[in-house]
C-alpha cells in the first residue's frame, strides 16, 4: 500500500497551486517602484580589440538614465572563479581576469560591452543602437586542438597560451597504465565528441538590483540556484560589499540545470548600477541573449582506450580529453572536466588501472560550465560507448561483458580516488532486463522490419557522484568554497514548524518533500511544516542546489537540526511528565513515558517552550529553534542501468525513440512521484543531447544556434512514455536518510544508450560504422548509412 504521508509517500506538491494559477513569484514578476531597465550592448564578433565605445549620441536619446562601459568597472573586481585546478606538473591553472563589461578586448560573441540604463526597456534598446563601437577584428580560436597549437591567436594576451591546465589523474598510475596496455590481449580505442549544449531552463535569467541610500543596503533579486554563493562571490570578490549589507533573493526560479549556479556579470552590473543610478535597475534576458550569455555545457573531445586480458577482463583505461572552457572561467568550470569527470572514469567496473588526461582550453566562445550531470555525463558517455565497442569488437554480448566486469563488493575504492559506499549493479541490470522487456525485442524488431524500418536496442550503466561533498576534501582539490548545507528549524508555540534551508528549489519540489521527512520524524501532518528558501535575509548560510545534493546534504542538515529539536523537546516533556528523560518516547506527535499510559502532545511541549511557566528553566533555555550545518563525509553514488530502443528509417536517417527504460538505485526515497519526475526530465535532456541538441559555432566564432529556431529543443512528439523503476535500493551508508540523489541521473545515463541503440539498428541493416557522434541527426545517420 502506498503511504499517504511521510517518507515514501507520493505527496502531491503544494507549490503546484501557485504555479498552476499564475501566482508564482518569478524574478521577472518583481517590479520595484521607480525601477529603470538595462539593455546590454553585446559583442557581435568573437575576438577583437575594443578601441573605443562612443556613447555620446546614445546619451542624448529619450529616456536614457546612464550608460556604462568597461571603464566604469576598472575599480571593480573580476568575476571570480570558484575552483582552482592544479595541473600534472604541480602548477596552478591559468586564470584570466573576467570583467563585468568588456575592456580592451572582446572575447566571445555575446560578451557585454556597454549597458544602457533607461526609463523603459525599449528606450534602452533604442539608445544602445546609437552607441558607436570601434573594434579591430582579430582571428578567433574556436577549435580546441587548433587553439593549443604554437602560434595560435591568444584569447588572453596576458596568459602564456590558450591552455588553462593540463591535468593528469592519477599521475602516479600513468606508467602502470601504459604497461597494462602493452600487456593487453585486446585494446579498444574510441574517439568521440561530447557535443556542446545549452541548458535552456524555460525561465531566462533576470536580475533586479536595488539600493537603499538611507541605510546603505544592497538587494539583488536574481534567478539563482544558490543565493548565498552569489552573495559571497559578488560581495567579496567583485563589488566589495560585506554580506551584512547585501541581501540576495532568488524567489521562484524557473529551472536551473546548473546554468543558474554561476555568478554572472549582469548580476554584478544591476547591483552596481542601482547604487550608481540611485534607483532599482532591472535586466531580463531575452532567449537570444541567453544563448550567448548563459554558461554552456559539455563540449569535450576525447580519445579513450580500454585494455582487456584474454578473458575479457578490463585491465586498464586511459583517456585524453580536450575540455572547452570558453573565453573566461565560469564559476565552477575548471572542476567539471577534472574532479567531476576523472573521478568517475571507473564507472561500474573493477578496472584496476586508470589514467585520465584533461587539457582545458580557452576559445573565443561563451564560457562552459556545469550542466545537468556536469562531468559525469561526459565520463559515462565515453565509458559506456567504449564498453559497447569492446563487446562488438570481441564478438561478445554487451550486457554480459558489463556484468563480467561489474564491481560487486562494497565499499569499493576505485583507482581514481573515490570510494563507492554501496551499490548493486547486478540488481539494476536484472531489473532493466525485466522492465525493458528485452525478451520481446526480437519480435518488435521483426515488426519494425516489416514496415521497412530498422530497430536497435542499446544499454548502458552509469555511476555518479552526488551530494558534493566533504569540505576538507574539496578544499584540497581546489574548491574555493565549503560544501556543507544548513537548516534552521523554528518550532512555533502552537506546534507548527518553519524550516529555513540553504538549499534552493527551482522545480525539485523541496517545499513538499522536505516536510515529509520532518513529519515522519515527529509524527505530525506535513501541512504543519513550511519550507523557507531562496533569501539570504532569512535563511542560514548555505551552498544551494546543484549536483543532486539537496536532500543528501540539505536534507541531512534538516534532519540534524530536527534531531536537536526532538532532544530538547524530550527534556521539556520529561519535565512535564515528571519522568526520566531516558524514558521519553516520541511517536505519532506525542511524547510518552515508556511502559506507561502517560503522555503529552507535541503541541503542549512546544507551547511550554514558549510559555515556560512550568518549565525546567534552570536546565534549559526557553524556545525551540535549532540550526545545523551538515558537512558530508563522502559523496553519494547513485547508479543504474538504462535501455533505449529506437526505430531508424533507412530512407531518411530519422531516428525515433520507441521505448526507454531506466532502472535506478537512488538509495532510500522520500517522494517517489517527485523522483520519477526528476528521472523523466533528465531522460528528456539526455535524449535531446543524443538526438538533436547541438550548440554550434562557425570558424569565425559566430554562434549558429542562438534561438529555438536553430537549437533543437526536445518537444513532446520527440519523446515516448518512459519506463522508470527505482525499486533497487542500496541506501547510502553515511547520511542520516540513506539517500543518494536523483536529479541528474537521467541526463547522465541516457545518451550512450541512445547511441548504442542507433548503432545496433544500423548494424541490423548491415552497416557497422563503429561510432557516430551526437547528435545523431537524420543527416548524420543517413550519411553514415550511405557513406
Amino acid at each position, binding site marked *: 500500500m502506498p503511504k499517504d504521508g511521510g517518507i515514501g509517500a507520493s505527496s502531491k506538491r503544494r507549490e503546484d497551486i501557485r504555479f498552476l494559477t499564475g501566482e508564482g513569484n518569478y524574478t521577472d514578476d518583481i517590479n520595484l517602484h521607480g525601477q529603470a531597465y538595462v539593455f546590454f550592448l553585446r559583442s557581435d564578433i568573437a575576438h577583437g580589440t575594443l578601441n573605443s565605445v562612443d556613447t555620446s549620441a546614445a546619451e542624448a536619446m529619450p529616456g536614457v538614465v546612464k550608460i556604462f562601459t568597461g571603464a566604469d568597472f576598472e575599480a571593480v573586481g573580476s568575476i571570480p572563479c570558484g575552483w582552482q585546478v592544479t595541473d600534472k606538473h604541480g602548477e596552478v591553472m591559468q586564470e584570466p581576469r573576467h570583467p563585468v563589461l568588456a575592456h580592451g578586448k572582446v572575447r566571445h560573441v555575446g560578451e557585454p560591452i556597454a549597458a544602457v540604463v533607461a526609463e523603459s526597456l525599449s528606450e534602452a534598446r533604442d539608445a544602445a543602437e546609437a552607441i558607436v563601437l570601434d573594434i579591430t577584428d582579430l582571428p578567433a580560436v574556436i577549435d580546441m586542438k587548433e587553439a593549443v597549437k604554437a602560434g595560435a591567436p591568444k584569447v588572453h594576451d596576458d596568459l602564456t597560451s590558450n591552455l588553462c591546465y593540463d591535468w593528469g589523474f592519477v599521475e602516479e598510475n600513468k606508467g602502470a597504465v601504459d604497461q597494462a596496455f602493452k600487456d593487453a590481449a585486446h585494446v579498444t580505442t574510441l574517439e568521440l565528441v561530447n557535443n556542446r549544449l545549452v541548458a535552456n531552463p524555460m525561465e531566462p535569467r533576470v536580475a533586479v538590483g536595488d539600493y537603499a541610500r538611507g541605510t546603505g543596503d544592497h538587494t539583488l533579486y536574481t534567478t539563482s540556484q544558490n543565493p548565498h554563493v552569489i552573495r559571497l562571490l559578488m560581495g567579496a570578490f567583485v563589488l566589495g560589499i560585506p554580506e551584512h549589507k547585501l541581501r540576495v533573493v532568488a524567489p521562484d526560479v524557473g529551472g536551473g540545470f546548473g546554468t543558474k549556479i554561476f555568478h554572472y556579470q549582469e548580476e554584478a552590473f544591476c547591483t552596481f548600477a542601482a547604487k550608481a543610478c540611485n534607483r532599482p535597475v532591472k535586466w531580463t534576458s531575452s532567449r537570444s541573449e541567453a544563448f550567448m550569455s548563459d554558461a554552456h555545457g559539455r563540449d569535450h573531445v576525447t580519445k579513450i582506450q580500454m585494455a582487456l586480458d584474454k578473458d575479457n577482463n578490463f585491465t586498464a583505461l586511459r583517456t585524453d580529453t580536450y575540455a572547452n572552457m570558453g573565453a573566461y572561467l565560469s564559476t565552477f568550470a575548471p572542476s567539471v572536466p577534472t574532479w567531476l569527470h576523472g573521478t568517475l572514469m571507473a564507472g561500474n567496473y573493477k578496472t584496476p588501472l586508470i589514467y585520465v588526461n584533461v587539457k582545458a582550453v580557452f576559445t573565443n566562445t561563451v564560457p562552459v560550465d556545469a550542466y545537468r550531470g556536469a562531468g559525469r555525463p561526459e565520463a559515462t558517455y565515453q565509458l559506456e560507448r567504449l564498453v559497447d565497442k569492446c563487446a562488438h569488437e570481441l564478438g561478445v554480448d554487451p550486457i554480459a561483458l558489463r556484468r563480467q566486469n561489474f564491481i560487486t563488493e562494497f565499499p569499493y575504492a576505485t583507482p581514481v580516488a573515490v570510494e563507492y559506499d554501496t551499490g548493486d549493479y547486478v540488481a539494476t541490470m536484472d531489473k532493466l532486463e525485466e522492465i525493458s522487456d528485452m525478451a520481446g525485442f526480437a519480435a518488435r524488431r521483426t515488426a519494425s522490419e516489416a514496415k521497412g524500418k530498422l530497430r536497435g536496442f542499446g544499454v548502458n550503466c552509469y555511476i555518479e557522484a552526488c551530494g558534493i561533498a566533504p569540505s576538507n576534501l574539496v578544499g584540497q582539490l581546489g574548491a574555493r568554497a565549503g560544501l556543507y548545507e544548513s537548516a534552521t528549524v523554528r518550532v512555533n508555540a502552537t506546534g507548527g514548524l518553519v524550516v529555513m534551508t540553504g538549499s534552493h528549489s527551482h522545480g525539485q519540489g523541496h517545499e513538499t518533500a522536505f516536510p515529509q521527512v520532518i513529519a515522519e520524524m515527529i509524527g505530525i501532518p506535513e501541512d504543519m511544516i513550511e519550507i523557507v528558501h531562496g533569501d539570504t535575509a532569512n535563511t542560514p548560510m548555505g551552498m544551494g542546489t546543484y549536483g543532486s545534493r539537496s536532500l543528501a546534504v540539505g536534507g541531512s542538515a534538516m534532519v540534524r537540526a530536527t534531531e536537536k529539536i526532538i532532544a530538547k523537546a524530550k527534556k521539556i516533556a520529561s519535565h512535564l511528565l515528571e519522568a526520566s528523560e531516558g524514558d521519553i518516547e516520541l511517536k505519532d506527535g506525542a511524547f510518552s513515558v515508556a511502559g506507561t499510559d502517560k503522555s503529552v502532545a507535541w503541541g503542549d511541549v512546544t507551547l511550554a517552550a514558549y510559555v515556560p511557566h512550568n518549565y525546567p528553566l534552570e536546565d534549559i533555555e526557553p524556545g525551540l529553534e535549532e540550526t545545523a550545518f551538515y558537512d558530508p563525509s563522502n559523496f553519494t553514488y547513485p547508479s543504474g542501468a538504462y535501455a533505449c530502443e529506437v526505430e531508424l528509417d533507412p530512407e531518411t536517417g530519422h531516428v525515433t525513440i520507441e521505448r526507454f527504460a531506466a532502472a535506478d538505485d537512488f538509495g532510500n526515497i522520500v517522494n517517489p512521484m517527485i523522483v520519477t519526475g526528476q528521472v*523523466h526530465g533528465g531522460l528528456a535532456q539526455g535524449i535531446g543531447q543524443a538526438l538533436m541538441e547541438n550548440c554550434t559555432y562557425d570558424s569565425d566564432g559566430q554562434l549558429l544556434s542562438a534561438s529555438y529556431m536553430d537549437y533543437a529543443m526536445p518537444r513532446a512528439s520527440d519523446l515516448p512514455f518512459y519506463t522508470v523503476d527505482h525499486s533497487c535500493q542500496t541506501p547510502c551508508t553515511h547520511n542520516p536518510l540513506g539517500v543518494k540523489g536523483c536529479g541528474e541521473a537521467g541526463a547522465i545515463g541516457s545518451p550512450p544508450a541512445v547511441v548504442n541503440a542507433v548503432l545496433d539498428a544500423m548494424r541490423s541493416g548491415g552497416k557497422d560504422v563503429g561510432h557516430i557522434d551526437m547528435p545523431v541527426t537524420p543527416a548524420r545517420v543517413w550519411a553514415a548509412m550511405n557513406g
Partner: protein
Amino acid sequence: MTQVKMTVNGKPASGEVEGRTLLASFLRENLNLTGTHIGCDTSQCGACVVHVDGEAVKACTMLAVEAEGADVKTIESVANADGSLSVIQQAFQDHHGLQCGFCTPGMVMSASALLKDNPKPTEDEVRHYLDGNICRCTGYHNIVKAIMAASGQDVSALAAE
C-alpha cells in the same frame, strides 16, 4: 502611444502602449498579470499562450493593439470561482505535470484549447498539439498523462513507472 481597450478575464482593461508593445508585455507590465510568461523571442516556447476570443494564441505573436476589443483569458482566470483548481489544473497536480512551473501556464492554456476541440485526444494527438509548448523539466511524460486524464481517459496503464 496608443490607447487600447479589451476585456481581460471578464473585466474591462485598458492602457497606453507603443505600437510595438506585444500582448504578452501588455498583460504582464500594464495589467500585472504575471502568470503569462515569456520564455523566448521567436514564438517557439509557448509559455505565453493565452486565449483570444476563444482561440489559443501565443501572446508574443500578437501586438497589444491587435487585441483591441478582444476577449482575452489568461491563466489567472482558469481556476474555479471558489479558487479551487479546474479539472485540467487538478490533473496537472495529480500527475506531477509540472516542476519549475514556468512553462505551466502556457501548457494549461494549450491543453484547455486542445480539449475544447478534441475532448478525447490520443497520446499522439496530445504530443503533436504540444509541439508549440516547450517544457525543459518534465520530459513531457506527466504532462501528456495529465492532459489525457483531464479528458476523462484512464491513464493508469499508459506507462509503467
